[in-house]
């Protein structure tokens, strides 16, 4: 049993790459499949994921990404049809893999008949755009946090920090546990990290991995 996931991302463009970066920061193993030479070389410079260069619908290429060992495949290219094809092919080759497809219109929920989850990045993007346009004092989290990750993390049963009061856990610098177990109070030194409960935690990207190790095991 390992708590880190083995994830394949098809499409290393804007969405695919950002997603890979966040996942790699959290300590997961990411492999990206990307066709475009230039993008492949950009990703290699960032050194966050192994890159397989080629067409993600080609079974030969998906296999090279280590499909038989992967927990999740996320098809995040700009073409809905291609994404569905990649997910279906992957599910055919490895039946218990979790599949996530990026779609390009609202109401694409019906696709969940074929894949485990759908993503519609434009919706999140338009929320951010609306916030910017109004320029209001109240903004959604996704917008204001910049590089910070503000996350709701559920403490795993066998995690090193499980059952310990906050004062007893030495988090890396750049971590802030914001809420207590029920999200009703701000966390204090004597707040217990109860296994199974979720906590709002603000984390800098550099130490997300380590915070995950402490809270998720």
């Amino acid at each position: 049993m390992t708590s880190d996931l083995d994830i394949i991302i098809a499409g290393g463009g804007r969405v695919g790459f950002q997603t890979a970066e966040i996942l790699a920061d959290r300590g997961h193993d990411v492999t990206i499949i990307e066709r475009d030479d230039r993008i492949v070389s950009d990703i290699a410079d960032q050194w966050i994921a192994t890159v397989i260069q080629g067409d993600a619908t080609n079974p030969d290429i998906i296999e090279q990404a280590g499909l038989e060992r992967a927990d999740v495949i996320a098809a995040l290219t700009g073409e809905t049809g291609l994404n569905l094809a990649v997910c279906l092919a992957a599910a055919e080759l490895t039946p218990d893999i979790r599949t996530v497809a990026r779609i390009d219109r609202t109401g694409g929920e019906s696709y969940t008949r074929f894949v485990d989850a759908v993503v519609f990045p434009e919706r999140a993007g338009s929320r951010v755009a609306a916030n910017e346009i109004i320029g209001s004092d109240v903004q959604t989290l996704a917008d204001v946090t910049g590089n910070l990750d503000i996350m709701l993390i559920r403490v795993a049963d066998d995690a090193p920090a499980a059952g310990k009061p906050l004062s007893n856990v030495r988090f890396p610098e750049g971590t802030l546990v914001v809420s207590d177990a029920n999200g009703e109070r701000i966390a204090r030194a004597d707040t217990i990290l109860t296994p199974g409960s979720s906590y709002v935690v603000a984390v800098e990207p550099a130490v997300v991995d380590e915070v995950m190790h402490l809270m998720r095991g």
Partner: protein
Amino acid sequence: MSKSQTRSPEAELGLLDATMIGMGAMIGAGIFVLTGLAAEIAGPAAILVFALNGVVTAFTGLSYAELAASIPKSGGGYAFVREIFDDFASFIMGWMLWFAYMIAGALYALGFAPNFLELLHVYGVVPPPDQVGAVAVPVIDAALPLAFLLAFVAVLGLVALNAVSTAASGSVETIFTIIKVSILVVFVAFGLASPMFSGAEFQPLFPQSSGAAAVLPAMGLTFIAFEGYDLITTVTEEVQNPRENIPKAIFISLAVTVVVYLAVVTVAVGTLGAQGLADAGEAGIATAATSFMPTGLPIIQNGGALIVFGAVFSTLTALNAVVIASSRVAFSMGREGQLLPSIGQIHHRYGTPFVAILASAVVMLGSVALPTQSAGNMSSLFFLLSFVIVNVAVIRLRRERPNMNRPYEMPFYPAPPLIGIALNLLLTGVLVEYLLRTDPLALALSMAWILLGALVYFALKRVREQSDREQAAAATEITPEAED
């Protein structure tokens, strides 16, 4: 702030830091501890031994560079092999590498002890090391040898330090390495200028009894001195622009290390003579230094003390590096579910892979009881074997994943990994044959470790399957309610 204590995360490392981590491990203790032992086997050809080892290891260096640039994962050889091979093969790789580092730890601790005694001797605190042994003889029956105790205490101290605080950052390592190299440069400079060196006698190059063939077992013994670049690839995630800097760091550190080694060994053999070096054993370089360095200096009194200090300092920092390296290998194996999950967890209070460090400490402390030469042999044996696997991994990865992006591709593929495999296997064979003749205990212990590994692997697999079944059973019971 949420009123809990914090620690700073490690800084980003540049090319210089990455190179220094590699050099720090390679120039660490090998040169101080193993030169005497190599001279004992190969005579003045010890110079040749280190040069040839540099060549052998360069082929595997190419493989490491290619793997590190294309697989963005820290964790060194184990992480790469894990990516490519099935469960059992990658487990054995990790298991061997873990052992290689732990035994290297014992070796450095054993090298630390006589050098530390020599340092005390230089300042007149204790009689010369050989007499310390003699004085202690009547006591040994009841108590433990002093050197063994010192080695034990050194391991214990560094393990405790690493267990409760996060590793020293790369910049500290850089300073340490610069100190070590400077001390060696001073050694070489004084050695070349000394009258003893002008009358140096490198003939006969090979020992009369065994001839040129003596070079091979000596290569096997000292191979461990070049294991440092595995260490560079265990910290890759912290290095800036790794696709360029990791291959560069590997090659630069290897090249500089070989040059330093050759200079130091040449001076040591030239001044003290191969026989003198051999007699001094683990404290060979330190003894050579005391023989030609100027005396009567202010504060340090004796120029030799500087080199002896370098030896003590090097063995300690190298010991520290392998305590970290061995626990990282165990930690990655724990995270991958290949050892007990608790080994793959960081401690909630110390933020260190606490259990992984303790597990490594047990083996290290146990191995301090070994003779230095056995520790060197066993560690070299396991590095040779794991380097063979790393070279195989490169070939397999090229065949199975031809479309994988490789920011660094080695020249003249497939020659380098094939030559690497052949040379590493040759040295393994020579070493095993040599061990059969001279040190069957080391060989038996090595076999025992591999057998133990196989046992652990299958036992853990059983436990995992059982808990998977129980979970599956529990899941099917809950499902009807959960779907309501």
